[in-house]
């Protein structure tokens, strides 16, 4: 994985020193909150309901054991013994004291981590497919390009005060696991007919109060033009994006209001001025960054097949975990493992200090020291020899992280909601927990099949509810929590925004409503192979509306 060079080290150390001084001056009363707020936000420090919150960048979701171990230590030493992985592949601590933040940043810097650009109207942490470098269906590893974008966008003087925040995601496979069409810029790394690498470029996707699916504005952008083209997009956005209304300030609104044809014309015009400048990526630089992401030396481990076969005969639970949480690797003797952070009734994305340390040990011992954070709030071991899968499973069972529910209904994305967040209008985690408990039976979950359920505690949609097969949005109505349900969203290569199905449900009703929706789906699917989303696209909302609200209509 990427290792800091001298410049990165100096840059991060300088930022730690600078922010430490700012914190010291703030605590001494030398600067006001109005002066300090933009400074703390640029360093990932928010204020939530109960305390400050610190958001730590995990660039493109890639971690090594040393880093995860340090996150565990920080959780124990400075926080309350746990952390929360987010949909931007980052980690949040919910209880740090401001006075401790300089020490936390120094600890993070010691393992090449930081909190830079995890907030503010700048280019945020670039996210990538969590199976990058491992997936069997991948054309090329998207992370070197995410790293190039990180270097380019870090304290970029022109793009540090954009109209609003700006999110970029990259995938290297046809099957989109990085939700690129829900991003301000989505990049799909692919090869053209001549075998050259380049990108399909999507612009103007986003969730929040005005969800939009990104528009494809270029089918193939040569890799050398990545930075010049992104700069052209950002320039057009920076110039014309609205600054008068924060709710209309994202690039999705600009694209929508300007029209795709015109925005493409503007971007292309800008790009003509930039494409042959120093922004053109030299092949040597691409190769140099690629070298940092060289895959581990995966030696042949052909004994895996026999060992897995035997272990499956010995243990039904291992067999289920294998079927659900283990995916095909590009090397036939290896596999990529999803470590579910969605234990039944647990808080989605939360992990304790000791679990972080134990997972770090597992990664070190069995997974070439590599870990990923998925935007679905799970951890990934991207390279595990099939021969070691049983040992990994046993180690995960010991720490309570072997729940075999990847992509099932209890693998819920949930934002922190009103239990922590000062923007939230309703709680989301308790809803996730109750649905998870209701569908606790793995047998039942597997019978239902792939079902992406996503919950947000306010319209800002951090829980990606718009692109859930089933989405739940919590709002406050007349002093109570009310949950609106959307159906038919998805965040893959066929991204769609879910449709509101009808009136919302109280916190007491919402789990029953979800169960009714699932029951309806099971009754109308053509076969167990027809996933919820496919069935919904075939039949539309009518049967679900009928199941949820018919009684009311008749009563009325």
């Amino acid at each position, binding site marked *: 994985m990427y290792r800091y060079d001298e410049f990165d080290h100096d840059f991060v150390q300088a930022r730690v020193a600078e922010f430490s001084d700012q914190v010291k001056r703030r605590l001494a009363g030398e600067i006001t909150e109005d002066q300090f707020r933009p400074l703390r936000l640029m360093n990932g420090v928010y204020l939530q309901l109960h305390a400050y919150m610190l958001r730590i960048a995990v660039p493109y979701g890639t971690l090594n054991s040393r880093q995860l171990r340090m996150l565990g230590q920080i959780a124990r030493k400075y926080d309350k013994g746990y952390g929360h992985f987010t949909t931007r592949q980052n980690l949040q601590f919910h209880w740090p004291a401001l006075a401790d933040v300089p020490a936390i940043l120094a600890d993070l810097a010691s393992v090449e981590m930081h909190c830079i650009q995890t907030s503010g109207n700048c280019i945020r942490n670039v996210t990538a497919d969590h199976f990058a470098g491992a997936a069997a269906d991948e054309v090329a590893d998207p992370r070197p390009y995410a790293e190039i974008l990180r270097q380019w966008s870090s304290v970029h003087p022109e793009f540090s005060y954009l109209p609003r925040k700006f999110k970029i995601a990259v995938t290297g496979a046809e099957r989109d696991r990085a939700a690129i069409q829900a991003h301000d810029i989505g990049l799909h790394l692919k090869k053209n007919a001549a075998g050259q690498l380049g990108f399909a470029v999507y612009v103007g996707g986003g969730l929040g109060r005005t969800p939009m699916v990104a528009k494809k504005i270029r089918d193939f952008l040569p890799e050398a033009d990545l930075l010049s083209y992104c700069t052209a997009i950002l320039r057009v956005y920076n110039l014309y994006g609205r600054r008068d209304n924060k709710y209309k300030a994202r690039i999705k609104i600009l694209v929508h209001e300007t029209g795709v044809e015109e925005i493409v014309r503007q971007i292309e015009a800008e790009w003509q001025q930039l494409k042959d400048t120093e922004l053109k990526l030299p092949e040597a630089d691409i190769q140099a960054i690629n070298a940092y992401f060289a895959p581990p030396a995966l030696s042949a481990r052909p004994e895996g097949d026999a060992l897995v076969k035997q272990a499956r005969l010995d243990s039904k639970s291992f067999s289920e975990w294998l079927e659900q949480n283990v995916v095909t690797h590009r090397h036939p003797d290896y596999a990529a493992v999803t470590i579910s952070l969605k234990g039944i009734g647990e808080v989605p994305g939360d992990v304790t200090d000791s679990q972080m340390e134990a997972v770090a040990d597992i990664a070190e011992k069995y997974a070439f020291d590599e870990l990923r954070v998925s935007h679905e709030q799970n951890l990934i071991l991207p390279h595990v020899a099939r021969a070691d899968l049983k040992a990994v499973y046993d180690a995960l069972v010991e720490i309570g992280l072997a729940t075999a529910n990847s992509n099932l209904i209890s693998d819920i994305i949930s934002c922190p909601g009103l239990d922590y967040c000062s923007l939230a209008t309703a*709680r989301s985690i308790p809803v996730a927990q109750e649905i998870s408990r209701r569908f606790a039976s793995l047998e039942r979950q597997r019978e239902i099949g792939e079902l992406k359920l996503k919950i947000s505690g306010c319209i800002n949609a951090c829980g990606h509810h718009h692109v859930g097969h089933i989405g739940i949005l919590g709002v406050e109505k007349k002093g109570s929590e009310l949950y609106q349900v959307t159906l038919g969203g998805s965040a893959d290569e066929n991204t769609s925004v879910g449709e509101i199905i009808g009136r919302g449900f109280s916190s007491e009703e919402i789990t029953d409503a979800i169960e009714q929706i699932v029951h309806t789906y099971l009754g109308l699917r053509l076969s167990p192979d027809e996933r919820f989303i496919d069935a919904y696209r075939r039949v539309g909302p009518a049967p679900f509306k009928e199941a949820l609200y018919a009684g009311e209509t008749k009563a009325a």
Partner: protein
Amino acid sequence: MKVLTANRLSDGIAVWYADGGWAETVGHADIAHDKAAEDRLEAIGAAAAANNEVLDVNVIDVTIVDGLVEPVRLREKIRAAGPTIHPDLGKQASPQAQRAA
């Protein structure tokens, strides 16, 4: 009825104005029963923010339950108690707060 609340500068912990200082629990917060008292609380909050003791100062609606102050809105109830998903964390975890609850 209203009380004054904020988050403490040094650690961000939720606090309520009580008896001339900032208390870590809401139960005995100073109550404003009329507009004049509310204005006084707001002035105290603005001064404390200007003095860099606290931030995010707000005057919130409360009621009295069993002789103790209790916020009206769910958001403020959660601030006063802690995350509903973690009874072991936040104000609700301390014996004093449990008595207040």
